[in-house]
């Protein structure tokens, strides 16, 4: 009985496939368009998932707590004595003062991130980051050593030159020597960085000698982060305390927002396809109506005709899902997701060579399935009730 059921299904599927072969040009176009829609949606969700997963893996060493001073709703610098106020809070492992900021390069519209690091004045500083250090260099003028990211190097068009200058707020120039460059494999976080000595960063930004921009706090017990953040808030007036969890959350929201926006754009494409499918399924040609009537009169049940429609839809949507999803993976794996980078990564002037490694997630696949195959099945099989109800006597 079960075997007979399978044979019946296979027979009807065979018939559906032979119909597909008979109208191959039209059906290939449908599969192609459908696969394109799935390709776009899948590329999108793969890109976002892969970014989110990378964030989950890589952003775990983000400082537990970042403390910034706020004044009139905007961030201002604080002074180094804040470190002393925090150090005796029980549970804090270390407090690192930091000077950092953005440098907007008006020549080419790029934003750089400048970080002052106390260790940069030492010999061979910052080990283990994959920085290529260059031999020491002496200039006639006063110049600071700086380690720069690849994007910065390209954006400043340094070429083989090692010196460059940045403007202080009073528009005087400050000179730098490239002491080292970040390797390509850390571009994902270092592309826009200019690392310099703490004092040099203060000089560049026009900060007073003891001023810092924020404090990085490491906490011994991760479970205590929120408690300690509260304590810091009480101890220092007018500060904003940002925890790692909040950064992660903001991050998820931002990319969720972006992918949501993209999906909303793609929704139009999907809706258009659903309408197209509906139209195709409901508007039976006289030849198709006759075919249904003949099938019924030679003994096909209404349910057999619906099974036929079901298989026709399965053939189209499964092929489209297979090809579209496969295409999306190749798009990400071999073409770095080139089509959707702008939407997700923004129109940055610096374009870090982020290699997005797609991650398979059954949830994503289900979402794509339920956004593409299910509506297509619904759009074609439901009106099939209507067409399958054609009376067999219409051929007589």
């Amino acid at each position, binding site marked *: 009985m079960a075997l007979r059921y399978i044979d019946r299904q*296979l027979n009807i*599927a*065979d018939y559906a*496939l032979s119909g597909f*072969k008979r109208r191959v040009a039209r059906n290939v176009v449908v599969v192609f368009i459908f696969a394109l829609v799935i390709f776009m949606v899948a590329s999108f969700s793969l890109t976002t998932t892969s970014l989110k997963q*990378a964030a989950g*893996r*890589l*952003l*775990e*060493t*983000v*400082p537990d707590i*970042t403390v910034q001073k*706020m004044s009139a*709703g*905007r961030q201002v610098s604080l002074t180094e004595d804040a470190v002393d106020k925090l150090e005796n809070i029980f549970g804090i492992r270390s407090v*690192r003062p*930091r000077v950092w900021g*953005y440098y907007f390069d008006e020549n080419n*519209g*790029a*934003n750089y*991130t400048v*970080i002052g690091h106390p260790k940069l004045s030492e010999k061979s500083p910052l080990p*283990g980051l*994959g920085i290529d250090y260059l031999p020491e260099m002496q200039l006639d003028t006063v110049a600071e050593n700086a380690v720069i990211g690849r*994007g910065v190097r390209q954006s400043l068009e340094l070429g083989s030159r090692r010196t460059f200058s940045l403007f202080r707020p009073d528009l005087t120039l400050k000179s730098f020597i490239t002491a080292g460059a970040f*390797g390509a*494999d*850390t*571009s*994902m*976080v270092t592309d*826009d*960085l200019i690392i310099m000595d703490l004092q040099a960063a203060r000089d560049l930004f026009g900060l007073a000698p003891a001023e810092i921009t*924020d404090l990085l706090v490491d906490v011994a017990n991760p479970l205590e982060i929120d408690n300690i953040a509260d304590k810091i808030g009480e101890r220092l007036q007018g500060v904003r305390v940002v925890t790692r969890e*909040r*950064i992660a959350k903001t991050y998820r929201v*931002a990319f969720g*927002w*972006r992918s949501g926006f993209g999906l909303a754009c793609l929704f139009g494409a999907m809706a258009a396809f659903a309408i197209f499918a509906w139209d195709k399924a409901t508007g039976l040609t006289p030849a198709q109506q006759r075919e249904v009537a003949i099938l019924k009169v030679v003994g096909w049940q209404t349910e057999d005709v619906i099974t036929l429609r079901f298989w026709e839809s399965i*053939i189209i949507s*499964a092929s489209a899902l*297979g090809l579209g*999803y*496969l295409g999306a993976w190749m798009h990400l*794996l071999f073409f770095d997701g080139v089509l959707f980078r702008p*939407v*997700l990564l*923004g*129109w*940055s*002037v*610096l374009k*870090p060579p*982020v*290699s997005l490694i797609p*991650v*398979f997630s059954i949830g994503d696949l289900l979402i794509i399935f339920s956004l593409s195959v299910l509506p297509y099945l619904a759009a074609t099989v439901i009106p099939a009730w209507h067409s399958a109800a054609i009376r067999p006597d219409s051929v007589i």
Partner: protein
Amino acid sequence: MRLSLRFLLFLAVCISAQLGLIGAANQRLAASSEAERRIVRSIEILGLSDFCIATDARYVRHLAVSDRLSPFMDHPGSIEHFPTGSFWIPER
């Protein structure tokens, strides 16, 4: 061979190609573990907060330090407001 079995074969080919791609992705992920270790260490030592995949607006680069006033602060033509800044190139 009957058509339906040929179709199943086609699907099986798709699925195995898919599995191959997933395998390749996992391999690539494993191969990048050294780079990932460096990234994690860079984040830790430099106190970074985010990836630098979007530098179009400052608070997109460092979401942790974004505030409501950052739009329009540096570049008068830049529509530095999320998500607008991500979709339009600032006027030069």
